[in-house]
């Protein structure tokens, strides 16, 4: 470490490579210092606890449902190849993908519509998107149970339309509906943020270049809003995969999804090592997917 004058407001000197290097170092240190509070916070209050869970995943459930922290083994990971785990995984992936897709299809035009409103109107519209979510999520799920349930408003509608009494409650459809309801705002917010900052002249340019409305959406708007699409999809897909309250309340627990399965391992089977292994693998897959996406040139969320 050579003693080099750092860029100081008072001093002024002829620039040297050492000074430049010191300036770059100082800039880097500024960034680091800015990140440091959150960094150390997350290390202490997230990474360290996480290490405990990872350690648990190599341990063994003892006969009382406690965890013996000796006799390390990979048994919990070996179980991941069982057909029941595979079935649950595929089913959950499918439902989570479906939920994400539906959210995308609904949220995209909505976010676009929002972005074309005047600032005052769009702020108001955004707030009204968020307000329902300031009520308790259990209460919201229960409200859906009433709507979809026996003699609820939904069956009234299907009857009135002449479809007969169609009850949706306790079906996969109801689960997807509940998930879409729960996570739609997570899709709308980033999509809106992404679309709002697109320069609209680009769209005008595409129309000028003979693109139809659909084409300019397909070739200009969609690619430009891709960061929003990806961010929204991650924010919807991840919690959908881990959801367990909605499948329980609206799906009647008839189909076990990954989230419920992990909860079952921790809270019912009291098999913490297996629960830890399941969640650890889930996180690893998610993290790899996002990292690969960003390495391939994706922008920040």
């Amino acid at each position, binding site marked *: 470490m050579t003693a080099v004058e750092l860029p100081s407001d008072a001093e002024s000197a002829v620039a040297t490579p050492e000074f430049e290097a010191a300036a770059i170092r100082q800039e880097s240190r500024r960034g680091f210092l800015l*990140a440091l509070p959150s960094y150390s916070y997350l290390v202490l209050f997230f990474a360290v606890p996480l290490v405990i869970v990872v350690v648990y995943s190599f341990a063994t459930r003892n006969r009382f449902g406690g965890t013996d922290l000796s006799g390390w083994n990979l048994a919990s990971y070996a179980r991941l190849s069982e057909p029941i785990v595979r079935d649950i995984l595929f089913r959950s992936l499918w439902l989570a993908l479906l939920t994400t897709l539906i959210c995308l299809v609904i949220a995209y035009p909505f976010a676009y519509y929002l972005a074309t409103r005047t600032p005052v109107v769009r702020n108001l*519209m955004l707030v009204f998107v968020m307000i329902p979510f300031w009520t308790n999520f259990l209460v919201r799920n229960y409200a859906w149970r009433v709507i979809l349930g026996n003699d609820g408003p939904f069956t009234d509608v299907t009857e009135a339309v002449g479809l007969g009494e169609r009850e949706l409650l306790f079906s996969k459809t109801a689960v997807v509906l509940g998930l879409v309801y729960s996570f739609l705002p997570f899709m709308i917010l980033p999509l809106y943020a992404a679309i709002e900052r697109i320069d609209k002249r680009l769209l005008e340019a595409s129309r000028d270049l003979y693109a139809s409305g659909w084409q300019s959406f397909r070739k200009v708007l969609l690619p430009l809003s891709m960061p929003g699409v990806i961010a929204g999809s991650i924010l919807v897909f991840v919690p959908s995969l881990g959801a367990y309250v909605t499948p329980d309340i609206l799906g009647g627990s008839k189909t076990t999804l990954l989230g419920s399965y992990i909860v079952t391992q921790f809270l019912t089977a009291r098999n913490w090592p297996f629960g830890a292994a399941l969640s650890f693998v889930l996180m690893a897959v998610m993290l790899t997917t996002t990292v690969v996406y960003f390495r391939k040139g994706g922008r920040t969320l």
Partner: protein
Amino acid sequence: MSRPTSSAVEPRGWTKGLLRANGWLVYAFFYAPILLLVIFSFSDSRNVGVWGGFTLDWYEEFVDSRQTQAALWNSVKIAVVSTAISVVLGTMSALALERFKFRGKQVFDALLYLPIIIPDVTMAVMMLLFFAEFFEVLNAVFGTELRKGFSSIALSHIAFSISFVSVVVRARLAGMSGHLEEAARDLYASRWKAFRFVTFPQILPGILGGALLAMTISLDDVVITQFVTGPGWTTLPVYVFGLIRRGVTPLINAVSVVMLMASMTLVALSLLVERVRNVGTNQRRGF
């Protein structure tokens, strides 16, 4: 002056109709259950979904119920404190990641994603194990008498809220040209002033969005809170979750309605303040 009117990209004809219809449908979708829960908060029946005639009993019960009120206040206190702290920390980390290069940046970036993708029951379990030991170690070393409760819940909520805030703020920062900050520096602003007078107002919508998200998640969290709570710190969702076993009564609907009214009042007030402060137009680039 109003915004520039119809241009080539302004949706027209049936596209416009479809967009508008979709908008209304989305709101209908969002508010259908809310309407229902408001209605049943006035229902004279223990069961949500069974109309038993109009009553204000549930509101009365709310006013009388020490436990419900305590739970509501606990939730609000924790949400406010954890949101405030995580907004500061999350914004700082967003700035660091978006505007600086430093060693360990990738590790930090990855670390920031983990709280978003971790299943909450897993986080709950690990926080439980952690706090049991953490406080014990602190108490042994420093002779303190720390107990699980407010601090452990708030610390856990901050741990996941930082990530959500930082994601939203980063999205906003990424869309903001770094030239603005340079221009401010060129115009004699110190680093802090450049942040205070240029960067901050620019990313404020992102910060507010992040804060809303963090607050919503904090107000809804059950599992993590349940595992790190201590005596007297039952939050509203945990309380409601416990109630399920004996049936969620319209009391909870009434609590939700009270919360809705409170938040709507806050929104209305803030809009009013904005209106008063911001006489004149508030036109921005873009759509």
